[in-house]
């Protein structure tokens, strides 16, 4: 395994394919370890992992917590309500507090794009972006890639359709960077009002017709449509969105017969995905995504902690 070239994991944009492959390989080994019921509690023994969540997310926080504990780290959860953090100085005050606590690994979720990057300039810890605004969510894309690789045997040359609210999706952005780097054919599918400007320049093909976008796809990745998007007038109604961009059996039928269905959760059943598809154990890998989430986060913590150890020795 190559030494990881970064101190933090803030984004997947620009991360070279060999490092992505290394992370996925390591995560795969943790997935096997987790299934065997064994743990590696000595690996991060004495290390402090802080989950700093400025946005609620039970699922991601729990996943990081479990990953840290399985590797033996001392895990602390800090939830900061968004209302008290509209003033940014609080963010940097938080950084100095964390430095005083000698935090080694800092997992940050924030509603603002770039907030983990800002924190990373001020803290001594290795920072892991657990989702920032509409920018990136690197561990989600890694767990998606691991899930795909396990189901399809490889990533190269697969056709992946990312569908729904791409405009506001950090999951979509991280997936686009990772999957393009790993030579997937990436499509984004959604109404023009939910596709970001010049998405095509990120190396994806843009579709506004869902059937055209799903045709012969190997992987159908659905995104969550948040209710406030409707309030913002970007789509006229949930029922119209479901009719044209919700994943149901009829639309899925144009994808490859063995196409898998993914969703980062939490799902809006009946808005972006039909329950019959979400719960179809033949096609849906949503449960496995959650399982791989823990393994991927163990791999990320392990990898960044190796650099901590190296810099500590210097």
């Amino acid at each position, binding site marked *: 395994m190559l030494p990881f070239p970064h101190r933090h994991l803030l984004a997947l*944009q620009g991360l070279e394919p060999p490092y992505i492959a290394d992370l996925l390989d390591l995560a795969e080994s943790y997935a096997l370890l987790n299934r065997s019921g064994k743990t590696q509690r000595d690996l991060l023994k004495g290390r402090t992992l802080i989950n700093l969540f400025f946005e609620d997310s039970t699922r991601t926080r729990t996943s990081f917590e479990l990953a840290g504990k399985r590797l033996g780290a001392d895990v602390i959860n800090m939830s900061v309500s968004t209302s008290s953090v*509209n003033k*940014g*100085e609080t*963010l*940097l005050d938080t950084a100095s507090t964390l430095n005083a606590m000698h935090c080694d690994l800092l997992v940050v979720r*924030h509603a*603002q*794009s*770039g*907030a983990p*990057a*800002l924190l990373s300039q001020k803290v001594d810890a290795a920072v892991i972006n657990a989702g*920032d*605004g*509409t*920018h*990136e969510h690197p561990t989600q894309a890694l767990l998606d890639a691991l899930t795909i690789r396990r189901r399809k045997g490889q990533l190269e040359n697969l056709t992946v359709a990312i569908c729904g609210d791409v405009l506001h999706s*950090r999951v979509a*952005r991280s997936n686009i960077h990772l999957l393009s780097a790993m030579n997937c054919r990436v499509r984004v599918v959604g109404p023009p009002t939910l596709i*970001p*400007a*010049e*998405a095509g*320049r*990120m190396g994806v093909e843009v579709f506004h017709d869902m059937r055209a976008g799903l045709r012969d796809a190997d992987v159908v990745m659905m995104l969550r449509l948040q209710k406030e998007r409707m309030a913002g007038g970007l789509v006229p109604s949930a029922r119209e969105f479901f009719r044209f961009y919700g994943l149901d059996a009829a639309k899925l039928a144009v994808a490859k017969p063995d196409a898998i269905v993914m969703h980062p959760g939490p799902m809006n059943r009946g808005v972006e995905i039909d329950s019959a598809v979400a719960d179809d154990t033949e096609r849906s890998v949503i449960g496995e995504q959650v399982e791989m989430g823990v393994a991927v986060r163990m791999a990320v913590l392990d990898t960044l902690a190796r650099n901590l150890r190296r810099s500590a020795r210097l």
Partner: protein
Amino acid sequence: MTAMPDTLFINARLIDPASGMDAPASLLVRNGTIAEHGTGLGVPEGAEVVDCAGAVLAPGLVDMRAALGEPGAEYRETIESAAAAAAAGGITTLCALPDTQPVLDDPALVQFVLRRGEATGSLTILPYGAATKGCQGKEIAEFGLLREAGAVAFSDGTHAIASARTMRLALSYARAFGSFIVQHPEEPALAAGGAATEGELATRLGLPGITPAAEAIMVARDIALVRITGGHVHFAHVSTGAALALIRAAKQEGLAVSCDTAPPYFDLNETAIGDFRTYAKLSPPLRREEDRQAVVAALADGTIDAIASDHQPADPDDKRLPFALASAGGTGLATLLGITLARVHGGDLTMLQALALLASRPAALLGLEAGTLGRGKAADLLLLDPERAWKVEAGRLPGKAQNSPFDGRALEGRVIGTWKAGRRVFG
């Protein structure tokens, strides 16, 4: 009070953009005004002699757009600190935006800012009056009374006058007082919540975008309003090729339309925001490279009437925030001339063109007796070494505000002296 002694500048390269003069000569200042210039001037008795050693002696700059922290945001900057930065940048006249706290929509407040400027002794500050009460964009302000109090023209500062009806009334009513409206040309409904120019970079960074069309749409609307009112609109900090094309066409049509731009829009493009660099967060946002080039072309062909600093002081706390929450704007007084000279060194503008854009043309637009070396005019002067190299370093700039989008930029050409009404105020 004893009379000020005469000052004779010798061995200068005199550049007067108002007359087109660019020649080696001497210049005599008497009682704070320019008495004479030419070759072979004798040294009057008791005169102080300044040997310019071949450096450029030019009119002090007329900056037609700067926000000052005072009144209301003194933690960002005071008029005194802005005046120090202006003197170091060769600026001797500055037009201040009215969207302060409180808003300059009352004659007493306009007089207050004028007096605070006079008290600096180094900088004439000409405040804009608010175009609408409270800069709220609803009711037009008392243009007549504000003008009498000394308002140089009318503007809502960093706020666009969004209502077409209000803008129509303002353009129309300002005619009665021979004045004009300075618009922040950005359609607010398209810009709301935006932090960067819409496009690939904003998409990758996950930042809410502002389409560049927000500028052209407002410019097109206001040009149409000029046609029906006969008023004069001035577009501030124009940053896109599309808007400049509309302005160029309106000028050819003979409409009373003018515009300025600011150094970031011809020196930087959107890539300066890089990894969420908030010092490069501006309003309007930095644009793509093709728009930067269009701004350079419009400076060269005369479409743009003036280069303004578009100075917006900020405190570190205003900028050390996640990008979308950070305040927009950059400090610009000390770098106005240096960044413009980069276009002279780059061959896009002549020295005369550059100084005209920085002094005589904004002065003419605003109807000021400034920006010229004409005999009898106030001796507002700058001495410039066009080749002296320096580096912009945020944290070491003159004045309080340090939020320069040009941090780290190496420049060639530096002000080595500034005089206000014959009195040396810098160097």
